């Protein structure tokens, strides 16, 4: 803990750790001193303790893991390593996709829209990609459109190129970061640097 005086928000941010028993000694001492004169935090702490109790009860209630699951986990993986050339494509729904269906969806879209000059290159790129990669590209493109509509041809082409590039990145795994995969959801998800950037950009905009 730093020696700077803490503002109220910083005390609030200690409450969750304190309620879950994870706050260190110095933090606990500081917070307890604060709680002596802050009824709001006192009330919040009681609520948080209740939440922690319920979380513990839910944990202890059992999670329905089939018997023998952990014993078989690694042997199953080894079996899939030796038995399959292609890596498993994650959730079961990908396995439901007919091998060419997703490619057809994407290539069909390519065919119906205005395309950048190397559209033949795109078609062959799509043909080289695995089904799961094409559907990843498709999903990632759809996610970027607010209402789930299909994006412009160039944006879709960009998604395909990114998926092909990310295949290479997978070989050096560890490059992916939360930031790459997790979209901004609310302003509260912004880091302080990003918030500064946001505020700077807001300053340059016109409002009337």
């Amino acid at each position, binding site marked *: 803990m730093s020696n700077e005086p803490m503002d109220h928000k910083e005390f609030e941010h200690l409450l969750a750790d304190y309620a879950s028993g994870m706050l260190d000694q110095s933090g606990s001492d500081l917070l307890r001193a604060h709680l002596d004169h802050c009824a709001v*935090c006192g009330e919040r702490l009681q609520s948080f303790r209740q939440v922690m109790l319920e979380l513990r009860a839910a944990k202890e209630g059992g999670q329905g893991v089939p018997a023998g699951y952990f014993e078989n986990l690694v042997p199953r993986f080894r079996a899939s390593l030796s038995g399959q050339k292609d890596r498993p494509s994650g959730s079961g729904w990908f396995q439901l996709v007919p091998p060419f269906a997703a490619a057809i969806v994407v290539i069909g879209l390519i065919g119906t829209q205005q395309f950048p000059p190397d559209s033949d290159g795109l078609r062959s790129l799509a043909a080289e990609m695995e089904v799961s990669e094409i559907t990843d590209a498709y999903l990632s493109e759809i996610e970027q459109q607010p209402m789930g509509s299909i994006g412009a041809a160039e944006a879709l082409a960009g998604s395909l190129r990114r998926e092909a590039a990310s295949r290479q990145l997978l070989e050096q795994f560890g490059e992916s970061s939360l930031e790459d995969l997790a979209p901004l959801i609310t302003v*509260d998800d912004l*880091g302080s640097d990003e918030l500064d950037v*946001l505020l700077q950009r807001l300053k340059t905009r016109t*409002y009337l």
Partner: protein
Amino acid sequence: MNRFSVVLISAVLFPVLLPAQNPMLMRGPAAERIEQFKKIRLMEELKLDEATSIRFFARYNSHQEELRKLNQKRNDIIDELQILRRRDVSDAEYEKTLQELKALADPAVELRVKFLNEISEILSPKQVAEYVIFERNFVQNLREIMREMQQQRRRGGGR
């Protein structure tokens, strides 16, 4: 602007400085900073003097709080609908809760009209129009910037 006015304006502009019981504290810190920027910019755009600012933001804060409560009520009712679904209740039960939801439509409109009437007492019609335009454009600008930053993150140009 004398020191007293600065303190008074600050207290109205930035309720976060008020005692901890202020419900504004329920919002995240990022949203509050953005709200602070919004208010300062609004003052500049509408060219509000200190007296008018104080009166305007007193009404504005009160309006925001009423909007928040209405929104909370709406969310509570929708959560109730979810619970009803899980309990597999009769149509009559659904109807009752849906009526509560519909009943919120008029208060929402009334709140907005009431606020515009209140600020019309202290702003000129041109300023009221400018406020309405500002609100709309602020939300649009914020959304666009969030989208740009999201795309930047994906391209690896973020943080």
